[in-house]
């Protein structure tokens, strides 16, 4: 097949364009498009940017905030006792305005204690250590690395914070469908069957934190509001105070898993630890030392 003048010019033109396209694309190329987009959008998703179109951009990270790449908690069950567990539960529920409802069908809990056989059902057998049988296993939301609840939420009301891995609830968006409760293998979520405010005594209210309303799901938030102020989670704080008083090592430790020198990493290096239901692949961020 002969190449006529017309065809030759066509091929030459396209080739020139092709050669020019490569450096042009390189000029615009970014190392990591997702990170680049994140930076440009200030952490908002494109749809959220559209939502706030024309408003003044807001927000700065508070300088005093505690930050980490991946927050985790280590619970040393051998150092826990009823008193510490009770103090953790009370403090958490008080500062987060979690109602105390007697009816177990309606109860709301962010942190509570379980027996070994309920915390680790697939590890249970009748001859486990007597101390473990009665030990209070403090359980809460595991802030999974791969959270099932986030995956099923139809409104993105529950989401994993990109920069530190905390799984949070946006109560403004929750429609109360309870998919997340069905998805969570740890039963860490509670549904507000009734208006929770009537179960919180007015003098017990923490005026700095909101309550919830009827029809939303709630759970532990790893004290995101305290981290923003530079404080560690409330349960970790009280348990460490109590442990100090009793002359023990801290029963609860909180820190950054990605930092090899963090306290959590040191504790995990020294002890044998386990996580709840690892076979489900949710990759929990709460570790138990037994």
């Amino acid at each position, binding site marked *: 097949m002969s190449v006529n003048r017309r065809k030759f010019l066509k091929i030459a033109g396209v080739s020139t364009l092709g050669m020019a396209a490569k450096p042009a694309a390189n000029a615009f190329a970014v190392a990591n498009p997702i990170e680049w987009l994140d930076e440009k959008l200030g952490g*908002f998703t494109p749809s959220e940017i559209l*939502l706030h179109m024309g*408003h003044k951009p807001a*927000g700065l*990270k508070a300088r005093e905030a505690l930050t980490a790449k991946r927050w985790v908690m280590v619970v040393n069950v051998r150092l826990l006792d009823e008193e510490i567990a009770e103090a953790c539960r009370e403090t958490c529920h008080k500062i987060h305005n979690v109602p105390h409802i007697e009816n177990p069908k309606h109860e709301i809990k962010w942190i509570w204690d379980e027996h070994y056989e309920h915390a680790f059902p697939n590890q249970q057998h009748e001859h486990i250590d007597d101390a473990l049988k009665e030990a209070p296993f403090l359980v809460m939301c595991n802030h999974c690395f791969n959270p099932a609840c986030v995956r099923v939420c139809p409104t993105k009301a529950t989401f994993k914070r990109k920069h530190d891995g905390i799984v949070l609830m*946006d109560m403004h968006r929750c429609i109360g469908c309870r998919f997340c409760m069905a998805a969570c293998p740890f039963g860490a979520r509670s549904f507000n069957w009734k208006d929770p405010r009537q179960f919180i005594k007015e003098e017990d*209210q923490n005026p700095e934190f909101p309550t*919830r309303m009827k029809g939303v799901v709630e759970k532990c938030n790893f004290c995101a509001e305290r981290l*923003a102020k530079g404080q560690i989670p409330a349960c970790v704080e009280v348990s460490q105070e109590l442990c100090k008083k009793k002359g023990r090592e801290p029963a609860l430790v909180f820190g950054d898993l990605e930092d090899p020198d963090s306290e959590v990493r040191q504790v995990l290096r020294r002890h044998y630890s386990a996580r709840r239901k690892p076979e489900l692949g949710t990759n929990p961020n709460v570790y138990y030392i037994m």
Partner: protein
Amino acid sequence: MYDGGKIIAGVIIGLIFLTFPIWFTHGKTVKRPEVKLPEKEKQCVESGAYMKTKHMQLLDLWRDSVVRVAQRSYIAPNGTKYDMSLQNTCTSANCHAKKTEFCDRCHDYTGVVPYCWDCHIPPKEEPTEKPEEKH
């Protein structure tokens, strides 16, 4: 027309009912709501005019910013840094410490029912001299 009298009477009565809100309030003016501005704090996060028209967008941006991207400080045009919080900044003791004398006045007047206070705790108020909860 069968039963003409009854139909016409019915139509007239119907019209009277339908137009009741128009002629009943005709010539009367309802007093514009007066919000009580804070005594101590004179500077809001944005100008008064901006807040009057855009406070809902501002609050919406604040809540997304705080809850979803963990950015909690707001830099006002004059450079002051604020904690983006309805409960801890907007209705703090020095600012709009009385929801019934600020938020509710306009919202009641315009018939707007925002659901902020279903979850957020309004500031504690001493009962005012005249009862405010008419609605």
